[in-house]
């Protein structure tokens, strides 16, 4: 993984959209209406950036490429689900991303020293766990989508479709608290706010319902896991090898 340092650095930079959003929010005093101070909002978007960095998933794209190139066949013979391989790749890349993400955080702190805060150990632990759970939810959803490769070959377009609600509803561009009432009434039942909004609120010290957050994260994982197992077993039966 360390072979592609430039790549990973670029990947970290490409996640900076939350900072641009923060700029719009604070520059136009939009936060006054939702009762979050500039300071807390800055922390929120910083945390949203971090959570996104450590929960981003691209298993569909890897799997699609492997499946189109016919690389899946040897994986299937191995006595372990190939998705463990992708899982390990993701974890490895997240670890290599640590230094780059922290450089960006460090730069952010230099330009905005008033934002510096140190969450206590408990908060840090809970936030790490919830970020990991968020990663798991996204990994499961994408793995389910990736299994569609067995039927359509090009599953990445389904992923791009799913990415739209993730982008707008997860809290990456605007905190979920700021959403209008007609959205807030149902959004907490979907997995989206638990992907970024919940871990970011937790880490930044904004108010959030911790029990409900963890409960919903675990609930969604428990719901998605059997779906994945089912679609995997159906898909592998359907599988016809491609390429060489």
């Amino acid at each position: 993984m360390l072979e592609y340092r430039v790549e990973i650095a670029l990947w970290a930079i490409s996640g900076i959209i939350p900072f641009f959003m923060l700029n719009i929010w604070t520059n136009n005093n939009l936060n006054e209406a939702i009762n979050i101070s500039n300071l807390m909002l800055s922390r929120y978007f910083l945390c949203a950036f971090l959570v996104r960095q450590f929960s981003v998933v691209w298993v569909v794209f890897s799997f699609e490429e492997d499946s189109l190139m016919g690389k899946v066949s040897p994986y299937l013979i191995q006595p372990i689900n190939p998705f463990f391989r992708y899982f390990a790749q993701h974890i490895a890349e997240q670890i290599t991303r640590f230094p780059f993400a922290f450089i960006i955080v460090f730069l952010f702190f230099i330009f905005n020293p008033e934002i510096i805060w140190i969450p206590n150990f408990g908060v840090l632990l809970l936030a790490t766990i919830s970020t990991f759970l968020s990663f798991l939810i996204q990994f499961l959803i994408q793995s389910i989508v990736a299994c569609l490769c067995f039927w359509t070959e090009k599953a990445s377009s389904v992923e791009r479709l799913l990415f739209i609600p993730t982008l707008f509803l997860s809290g990456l561009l605007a905190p979920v608290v700021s959403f209008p009432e007609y959205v807030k009434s149902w959004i907490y039942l979907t997995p989206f706010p638990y992907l970024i909004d919940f871990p970011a609120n937790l880490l930044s010290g904004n108010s959030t319902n911790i029990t409900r957050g963890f409960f919903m994260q675990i609930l969604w994982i428990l719901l998605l896991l059997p779906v994945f197992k089912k679609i995997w077993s159906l898909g592998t039966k359907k599988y016809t090898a491609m390429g060489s």
Partner: protein
Amino acid sequence: MRVRKYLKVYSKFLHTSLASELEYKTNIIIDLITAILSLIGSIFLLSIFFQNNNRIGGWEFEQALIIQGIYTILNGITNTWFNPNLTEIVKHIREGTLDFVLLKPIDSQFFISLKKINPSGFLEIILGFCLLLYCIKINQINFNLNILSLFFITIICSIFILYSLWFFISTTTIWFVKTWNATEVLRSFLYIGRFPLNSFSFSLRIFFSVFIPIAFITTIPSEVFLGLSQLWKIFLEILVALLFVSTSRKFWLFALKFYSSASS
């Protein structure tokens, strides 16, 4: 004569790539839904910003929708032409197939930039124009030929700037081999084009007009559309577009000197 030859070649490109894309029909339908959802999503985000404010960076909601429309059109163009072709450059260079392109008796930049087409971006272009038509209605713009021609000039300049940016990034592949992520960086910067430039702080505004001229790409055409733009801004945009196109062309020819094939 040369123009006719290139037109003929291009019609062949269109034919083959449309034929191959239409193989994946469900894909196109999914892409259409994605385009619609994405537009709804960004209008939703915009509506959050305007929930308790009448103006953002001097733009009203109805006016900001124009920027959104222009962004949608340009994004459609990116998805139809730039994205499928210029990601291909990365592949050409990594697998060494750029050799075959260079050997062909045709301009390599032309070949590489226009070979493929992805029809699902068309809907985004249409959606963008529909949104603009709606904007004419709600903003009560009395549209005349003058504004229309200026608008098309600025839009065409935007397309050229956008193309040059993409092409520039893709060209760097010759040195770095894997720039897939670099295009992601560009994508996330371009995302800013959805919002009026004045809604950002001063330093970011400078950054987005000088280094990555997103200001020119969406904000100026929108101002022209509203009939607000000064003439010097339009001239400046034309100048910037010319500058970008010629530099990207030179950069490509320069980069080719460093191309040293791959594998076999």
